[in-house]
């Protein structure tokens, strides 16, 4: 048996981080009543912009800032189209994904990077030296912790803050929120931009930490998994971590089992992460979606 459970769990956290980042952004968007299917597109534009910003400045953290800005900028297109021109959200989101894939390919033409730009791993004093737990939890790069911190922040924001309450009200019943005098469109545009920024970060995590390189189509469908995981988590932030880590965990485990030479046909191992996601989606009592999810809103109605 060559599988080292400590390294496996540590790898799991890294493999799950991009999905978690993209999913937490989408969760906020959906809680405000907007369905943005463009996560994949925003992720990949974030990936290429983060890569270019990081490598041209020599600072990977500037890359992440650039990626978040690029993701937010792209999501603004979606926001204008769906919130002000009242286009269909599903079609616009799908369009955004296709646009993002093409745009990233265009931006990435001839993008050059050096193999030496790396995001250093933290070694948190004391905690990192704890046996077993230390290597699993406390020796990652800063983005892993940031992703968990964002989840915690979103949870606190939605549960305890007044602004979070307004966002939820907008997502549950936009007419009522409008009647109470809240600016439904402004709330939604901000939520969409937050989702875009998170998707951008998720993409940059792939192109700056996990792979780390820029190649066309590098996100390879991670954005769609993020969308599924939001439903899986029934729109609750903490469950999102469980969903993302489950998916990331099965992905890493299946590669390890293959290398181990397990006597299970490889095809089953390869489909395992997706199968696990579907099974859990079916088994858990799907939470109630925000009541206004996907509906267009116009202040005159």
């Amino acid at each position, binding site marked *: 048996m060559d599988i080292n459970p400590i390294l496996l769990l540590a790898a799991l956290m890294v493999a799950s981080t991009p999905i978690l980042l993209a999913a937490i952004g989408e969760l906020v968007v959906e809680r405000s009543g907007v369905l943005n299917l463009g996560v994949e597109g925003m992720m990949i534009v974030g990936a290429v912009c983060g890569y270019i910003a990081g490598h041209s400045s020599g600072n990977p953290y500037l890359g992440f800032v650039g990626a978040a800005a690029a993701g937010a900028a792209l999501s603004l297109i979606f926001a204008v189209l769906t919130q002000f021109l009242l286009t269909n959200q599903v079609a616009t989101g799908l369009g955004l994904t296709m646009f993002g894939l093409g745009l990233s390919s265009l931006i990435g033409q001839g993008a050059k990077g050096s193999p030496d730009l790396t995001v250093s791993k933290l070694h948190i004093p004391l905690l990192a030296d704890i046996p077993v737990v230390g290597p699993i939890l406390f020796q990652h790069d800063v983005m892993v912790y940031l992703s968990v911190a964002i989840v915690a922040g979103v949870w606190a924001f939605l549960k305890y803050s007044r602004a979070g309450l307004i966002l939820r009200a907008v997502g549950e019943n936009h007419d009522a929120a409008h009647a109470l005098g809240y600016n439904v469109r402004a709330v939604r545009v901000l939520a969409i931009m937050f989702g875009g920024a998170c998707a951008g970060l998720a993409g940059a995590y792939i192109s700056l930490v*996990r792979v780390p390189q820029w190649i*066309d189509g590098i996100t390879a469908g991670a954005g769609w998994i993020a969308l599924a995981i939001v439903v899986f988590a029934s729109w609750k932030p903490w469950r999102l971590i469980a969903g993302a880590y489950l998916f990331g965990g099965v*992905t890493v485990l299946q590669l390890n089992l293959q*290398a181990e030479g397990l006597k299970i046909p*490889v095809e089953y191992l*390869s489909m395992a992460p997706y199968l696990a996601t579907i099974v859990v989606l079916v088994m858990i009592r799907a939470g109630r979606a925000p009541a206004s999810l996907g509906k267009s809103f116009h202040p005159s109605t």
Partner: protein
Amino acid sequence: MKRRTLLATGAGAAMAAALGLPARAQDKTKVGFIYVGPINDGGWTQHHHHSAMEMVHHFGDAVDFVYQENVPEGPDAERAITQMALGGADIIFTTSFGFMDPTINVAANFPDVKFEHATGYKQADNVSVYSARFYEGRAIQGTLAGRITKSNKVGYIASVPIPEVIRGINSAYLHAKKVNPDVEFKVIWIFEWLNPAKEADAAKALIEQGCDVVLQHTDSTAPHQAAKEAGGVYTFGQAADMAEYGPMPRISSIIDNWSPYYIERVQAVIDGTWGSVNTWDGIGAGMVGIGEISDAVPAEAKAEAEAMRDAIAAGTYHPFTGPINKQDGSAWLAEGEIANDGDLAGMFFFVEGIEGDIPS
């Protein structure tokens, strides 16, 4: 009135341009390429494109060059190839195994267009096939891997289960085993030619399980990056030299050098002498290049690998020389027997000693 004149002039100019272009293009030979990945993948597609560009430079103005990248294998490929044929291409190179049936199908509709399919085995009157004997390069990688590994565990990131990939695994394993009887191979199939995230994860999984040499049959440089971060792990460039990762972790490479073939075939179209052929060249003909073996390799192992390269090039050594048994222990090649090309082309079994099954 003035505006109308302007419009008429504009339309006239556009018409002239539209009519003029094909007239000029007629004396040129139009060469098309269909790529499975992006031309900047750092590996397979990039090298086909690189070789194609060398061909274009060779002919200069005599050829018109068009290409389509990121063409998915499957039905969509048929559309892309058809479009290129309709666009007036005289010869079309389809550069991935999965384009085999689409190429044959489209070729039947365009008898006057020449087609060249890479790494396949289906020929037609206007379809040639060409491939390189990558397994010759794998023999050298296996030798180096067997010599250099300290953990005696060698990882192999396999892409799609087709004979070409299986030949590579077998060849590398046989030669690693020959110089290091304790060596063990761990194979991960990712079912794609190019998926950097998956390749990186696979490389990390192999390294975490103790592999200190990682071979890859996938197209990106992601495994090199993973090896570089892990430290003390050796890798090999695939399709392209990937020298930017040398001298460590990349210690050598297999370089696909298609340009002499491309120049020869396009020349044949220009001369009107093109015929359907089946080309399978290796190190000797220069189609498979062995990248510089870096100084991270001990001098003895380097000399041994270079001697093998020269012997293969000279034709005095064949990587599949018996005795070789199949995985189930049954005999394949007797002592001194050399594998024939038919067996190699259809190889769908592991040799004795490799663990695990080939996905079907």
